[in-house]
């Protein structure tokens, strides 16, 4: 609970995170934040507690992170599905809170709107760029609990996520990316939200699945998590599961979430120090 941000009114308690993120209510965002997720796995079953490496991708002004992870696996490894996943998404809160529409009723907490859109070239077969209503509402629900809405009454924050390339596990990437963008915009949050999904195939589980893996999964689980507060904001479970396996899968996901959050946090720090220097 070290990183807890004080609620409005307790101004004297400045926290570590406030200093870290340079909360300056920078509404005009100058930087957008793409997340570059990558999973590589060497097929070594014994390497259960792997490491997550962090690497900045050098596309000039972008704040980008690339994750190359040997995430822990249990049971047998599905060698056939071994591959490197590629997924890119982009989120950006819309230029800070704006005044809510006149037609809307007065509200003493802020409103949050989420829009998830896909580009025409994001899917293997070219489709029309489409809005994903389901993901939009899932994103909204995942973030609602993390943002301190009391800090901007009568106003609305719009969050737009644009999926540039879809390679499986889209929603967790969208959520992590959006929470990073919100933090970058200086909107108050209780904690960063990191999200990880997991697919199960019979006895085996694969973390951060690719679209091929998702197509043949027996069940899936997604957790969005605030590691510093040890709170889960969203939990979805579909398909066939046994109670024991749910427990194991949750452990794996939560572990991966905390590692992901560390990376997100250091990415923010680096960006903040770049801006000030």
């Amino acid at each position, binding site marked *: 609970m070290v990183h807890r941000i004080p609620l409005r009114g307790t101004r004297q308690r400045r926290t570590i995170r406030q200093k870290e993120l340079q909360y300056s209510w920078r509404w005009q965002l100058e930087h957008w934040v793409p997340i570059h997720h990558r999973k590589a796995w060497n097929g070594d079953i014994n390497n259960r507690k792997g490491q997550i490496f962090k690497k900045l991708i050098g596309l000039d002004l972008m704040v980008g992170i690339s994750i190359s992870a040997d995430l822990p696996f249990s049971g047998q490894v599905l060698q056939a599905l071994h591959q490197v996943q590629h997924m890119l998404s982009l989120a950006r809160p819309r230029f800070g809170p704006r005044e809510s529409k006149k037609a809307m009723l007065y509200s003493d907490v802020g409103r949050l709107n989420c829009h998830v859109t896909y580009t*025409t070239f994001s899917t293997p077969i070219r489709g029309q760029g489409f809005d994903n209503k389901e993901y939009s509402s899932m994103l909204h629900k995942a973030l609602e609990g993390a943002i301190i809405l009391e800090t901007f009454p009568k106003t609305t924050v719009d969050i737009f996520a644009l999926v540039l390339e879809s390679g499986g596990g889209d929603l967790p990437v969208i959520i992590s990316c959006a929470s990073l963008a919100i933090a970058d915009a200086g909107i108050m949050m209780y904690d960063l939200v990191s999200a990880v999904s997991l697919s199960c195939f019979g006895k085996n589980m694969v973390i951060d699945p690719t679209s091929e893996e998702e197509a043949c999964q027996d069940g899936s689980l997604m957790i969005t998590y605030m590691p510093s507060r040890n709170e889960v904001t969203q939990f979805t479970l579909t398909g066939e599961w046994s109670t024991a396996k749910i427990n194991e899968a949750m452990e794996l996901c939560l572990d991966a979430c905390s590692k992901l959050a560390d990376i997100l946090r250091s990415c923010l720090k680096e960006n903040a120090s770049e801006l000030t220097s």
Partner: protein
Amino acid sequence: MMSTKGYKPESGLAAEIEVEAYRRLFPLQYYECHLAESVRPDSRALGRARDTTIALGPVPSADGSALVKIGDTTVLAAIKLEVMTPSIDSPDVGSVAVDFQMPPICSPVVRPGRPAEAAPVIAKQLSDVIMSSGMINLKELSLISGKAAWMAYLDIYCLNADGSLFDAALLSATAAFSHLQIPLVSLNDDGKLITVSEEVKDKAAVEPVNKENRKLTIAVVPFSLTCIVHGKYILADPTSEEESVMDTHVTVVLDSKERLVSLYKAGGAVLLHTSVVKDCIVLAKQRVEELSEILRESLSAMEVD
């Protein structure tokens, strides 16, 4: 970010209020103060374009893609190829469909559910320039005469709109076409075309239809420069703020052989003298040299990889 160099309020209100407030309240006067000193608020000279970078292949699942940044303007172009049946009138040519999108992520002006007005205009200009400049030979997109040809879908997304969108879009389009790698296809038993993956191409069973010509030959490359004309001043490569304050835009498109491909001057309050148009063309010529160097560098860097 903001340079106050060249800003010397002489008297009156301008001398009393803060620079940032003055900028917001009297944007035109603020710019004129700068222009009189031949400098712009971002400390550029009037005829200078912003720093430009090209990254090739940011979307691996597309057949060709490029991310272009001109200053803060960021544009992503990707090409996907699909097999189509060519029309009877022109059996041995493929075709290109150009689309330009401005999602709400790119600018505070664009609202969700209400597409940006500028987007279809830029899309049309782009497709005109790409077709009329002779940059790509559509015959190269043919696979089997009268039976099959490639349809190239060029989709350009503006990720951050900070002025000179057409320049960035055109540069990303040419970069994406230079990066385009045509996939191998072969005929299956039913006479349908299927794509051949890289791993199985050595097998004798499948004979690719298009063994050669995996890259398009780009004969001439069109480059463009947008200028803003305000009184006697010509500002190259304007930012969105400059575009909103001053309203006479001239876009010059030249190809790599310094031939004029097109010239747009869409309305605006100021009538242009021909000498001003000539000056714009001179600026565009310099820009073409810069841009072709940048494009050449990024292409050669890709080949090294």
